[in-house]
């Protein structure tokens, strides 16, 4: 049962443009959402998070938007850089639980 879904397996963007990665979830009990970045043969690294009491969180070039009514969140990277090329995973927790669930990931390629 895939409770966190990333429907785009890949995304290609030109350097300097905006990258938008999307994530949908089915469990309305999720109340904390995270984005991770992963390079090949390495563990994912934490990028940015957002609590369900917010609809936006910004950290430098990275902004996460949360639409609770649509059960949708997105990660915006502006401007995109070639070093941003990696697989991005969306993850979610639910209230009172510590079992973090991940999406299938989106491979971002930023072309110079």
């Amino acid at each position, binding site marked *: 049962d*895939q409770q*966190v879904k*990333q429907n785009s*397996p890949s995304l290609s963007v030109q350097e300097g443009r905006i990258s938008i990665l999307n994530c949908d979830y089915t469990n309305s009990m999720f*109340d*904390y959402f*995270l984005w*991770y970045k992963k390079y090949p*043969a*390495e*563990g*994912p*690294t*934490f990028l940015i*998070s957002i*609590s369900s009491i917010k609809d936006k969180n910004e950290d430098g070039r990275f902004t996460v938007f949360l639409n609770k009514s649509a059960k949708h969140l997105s990660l915006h990277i502006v401007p995109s850089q070639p070093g941003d090329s990696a697989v991005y*995973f969306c*993850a979610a*927790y639910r*209230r009172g639980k*510590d*079992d*973090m*669930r*991940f*999406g*299938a*990931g989106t491979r971002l390629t930023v072309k110079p």
Partner: protein
Amino acid sequence: SQTIHQWPATLVQPVGSPLSLECTVEGTSNPNLYWYRQAAGRGLQLLFYSVGIGQISSEVPQNLSASRPQDRQFILSSKKLLLSDSGFYLCAWSTQGNTEAFFGQGTRLTVV
């Protein structure tokens, strides 16, 4: 500072052989500990998580098991490996409550 160690980095095992992957965390107490497997098209699949010594929650029925003999030690085991157990296994830790998780470097397991 906190660190997480996961070993070995790569492992080639014959079908039917046992498995033991070890993960230890330093610099923190009473962490949540996780085992994930990265599978094509399914992202990071949660296998086991633990909120304390001897407390293991299993997410996927399979021939794998996990144990937490010490506060900061998490072990993934199998008595008899299957070909389908091949994959990239990741250990992670987080503090209690909904926070970001920190991943180890992963173990590439190939069952032959």
